[in-house]
């Protein structure tokens, strides 16, 4: 059993039968009183406060004193609850949050400046509030291959690619979660923005409401007016949402889904445009799909930006164009591509792979794992010649086709050692670039591999 303790500021609004929850007077202002209320043997804790004026740092300190991990406690916002049914749903969601929370190690917490919400707070230093910060699983991270998606998308510059690895500065991080959903391999994780937790919470919400509920994503910092039939699901920043994250609640049985940026004055991180693009792509999918069928598995929604989810919900003859991610079709122009394999080297999801052997180079493309990150385009040395292109498009026919060879090129054999010299198209390109009549150099480059040219 979980102890469910709610601030008794306005219990009349909900008319909850006694015994289901405990209404605690002034819980928002005096969270330390929890020490006298929560039984020692309690293993789960759900706390309801009014976010508009509760000092969450002090609340975290109070539950920490009780031996709980503050981020593993279910906290519900009573200001976001419209009615009694909404309260039951919010309690179910808060209880569900407790179980999948993976915990945070040292260095995976972001300290926010102490909140000052009351006059008393101005006279003292309030307790700092912690939120989850990203950590990078070096086993999954492919920065060594050139990937820099998280660093490119990070709005605060907290993630940088240095010497083939991603460096993280917690002091610059704003814990928005964008790095989590843009990482093509799922290497970036944040315990406060975890897809497993999302799935568990949405399932609990839908079950509690017997399917009659819609999900409204909202930012950590925003206050959104409660509305009957809508459950407000807090994420660090709605800018982190992807088409996959928006489709997931529908696949899990919610009747509708939407997302709102910071309540008033726009997103403080400047991510409204990002959310608007995602919503446009989401609308494009919904417009074509009509309705989202129930999904047994939501695993395909993550870690990619949702390409597999799109394929799961769209009819089999669909062609849908996207503004940004989640899915792409890479095209290679055989006349200008030199088969240098840079695109396959940098591709973080192995949508593009190269298969060199003694006879030649083969580059394969599989749209089912492409996340339209565009890194192949950015790294192509022959981009200006139009060697590679990326269409952010779902084409059911292409999807069904799966992996296919998009480029094949012969590779001459070294006259000394018998090893590969370079793709023939690359040698032709080098010849074009060499000025004058330096035929001797060109002959050497064409006939010998790099290791044998000095002999």
């Amino acid at each position: 059993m979980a102890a469910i303790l709610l601030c008794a500021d306005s219990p009349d609004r909900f008319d909850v039968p006694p015994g289901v929850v405990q209404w605690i007077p002034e819980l928002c202002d005096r969270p330390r009183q929890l020490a006298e209320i929560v039984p020692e043997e309690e293993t789960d804790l759900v706390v309801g406060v009014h976010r508009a004026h509760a000092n969450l740092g002090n609340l975290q300190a109070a539950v920490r004193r009780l031996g709980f991990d503050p981020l593993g406690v279910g906290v519900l916002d009573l200001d976001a609850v419209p009615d009694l049914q909404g309260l039951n749903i919010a309690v179910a969601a808060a209880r569900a949050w407790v179980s999948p929370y993976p915990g945070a190690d040292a260095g995976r917490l972001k300290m926010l400046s102490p909140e000052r919400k009351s006059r008393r707070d101005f006279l003292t230093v309030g307790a700092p509030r912690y939120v989850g910060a990203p950590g990078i699983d070096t086993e999954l991270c492919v920065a060594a291959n050139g990937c820099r998606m998280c660093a490119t998308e990070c709005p605060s510059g907290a993630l940088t690619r240095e010497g083939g690895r991603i460096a993280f500065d917690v002091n610059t991080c704003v814990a928005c979660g964008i790095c989590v959903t843009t990482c093509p391999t799922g290497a970036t994780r944040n315990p406060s923005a975890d897809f497993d937790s999302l799935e568990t919470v949405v399932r609990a919400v839908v079950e509690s409401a017997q399917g009659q509920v819609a999900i409204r994503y909202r930012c950590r910092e925003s206050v959104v007016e409660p509305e009957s039939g809508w459950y407000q699901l807090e994420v660090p920043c709605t800018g982190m949402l992807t088409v996959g994250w928006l489709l997931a609640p529908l696949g899990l049985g919610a009747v509708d889904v939407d997302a709102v940026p910071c309540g008033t004055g726009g997103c403080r991180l400047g991510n409204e445009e990002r959310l608007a693009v995602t919503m446009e792509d989401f609308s494009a999918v919904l417009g074509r799909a009509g309705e989202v069928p129930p999904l047994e598995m939501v695993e395909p929604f993550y870690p990619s930006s949702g390409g597999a989810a799109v394929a799961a919900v769209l009819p089999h003859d669909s062609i849908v164009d996207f503004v940004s991610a989640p899915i792409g079709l890479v095209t290679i122009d055989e006349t200008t591509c030199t088969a240098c394999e840079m695109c396959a080297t940098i591709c973080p999801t192995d949508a593009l792979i190269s298969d060199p052997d003694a006879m030649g180079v083969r580059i394969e493309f599989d749209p089912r794992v492409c996340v339209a990150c565009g890194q192949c385009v950015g790294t192509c040395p022959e981009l200006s010649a139009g060697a590679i292109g990326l269409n952010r498009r779902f084409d059911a026919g292409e999807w069904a086709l799966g992996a296919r060879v998009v480029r094949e090129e012969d590779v001459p054999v070294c006259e000394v050692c018998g090893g590969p010299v370079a793709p023939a198209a690359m040698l032709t390109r080098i010849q074009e670039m060499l000025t004058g009549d330096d035929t001797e150099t060109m002959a050497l480059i064409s006939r010998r591999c790099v290791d044998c040219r000095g002999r």
Partner: protein
Amino acid sequence: MNPDGLSRLRQGVYRLLGAGTSHPTRELVAVAEATPLLLDELGLFDFSYAADLVDACGLIAQSDFELLAIEYVTLFEAGVTGIAYPAFESAYRADARTGQTAELVAEVRRTVLRYGLTLDEAKRDMIDHIGTELEIMAMLCRRESQRRREGKPTIKALMQQDEFLREHLLSWAPGYAMSVGRVEGHPVYSAIAKALAAFLEDERQLVPLLLAGERSD
């Protein structure tokens, strides 16, 4: 919690961890149990490292001093092929073959003297030992607390803390602490190291916030 309480809390935690990472004393074992209660008065549970620190104190209080001393030597002072977990900054940041060790130790010494702190030359540990560096931070927190009580500006003390953390402690101690925290068979020192890692990650973020707050006031 008030600002003075915060600097006294941090001073206390630095001192406790400084003692916990140095050669053990009977005094450390004797006071470990009561320390979290004292620090709680100053706001210990406002911070994420509280649980790790309480765990470490509990294990220190339950431990046998003689066995603890043996564990310390085994982990941090002896070893057939060298010290298992050297507790010196220079062991991680300097190449002994090129004389960088002496340079780095001299740099720490110069920094400490520049801060106006006095060194106890009779102490057995080198100045770049983890325990000594934590004690230096405790002294800087004490200075901040004293100035706060006297109504004097604290920005210089905070700048010194920020500098020493960035230039020295944070450049090596988190990695050291993470390594020791993973050691099996030495639960006391593993727990102390986990508390140290958690505390330093907190300090990495807290000191710049305090400094920014002081500059804006």
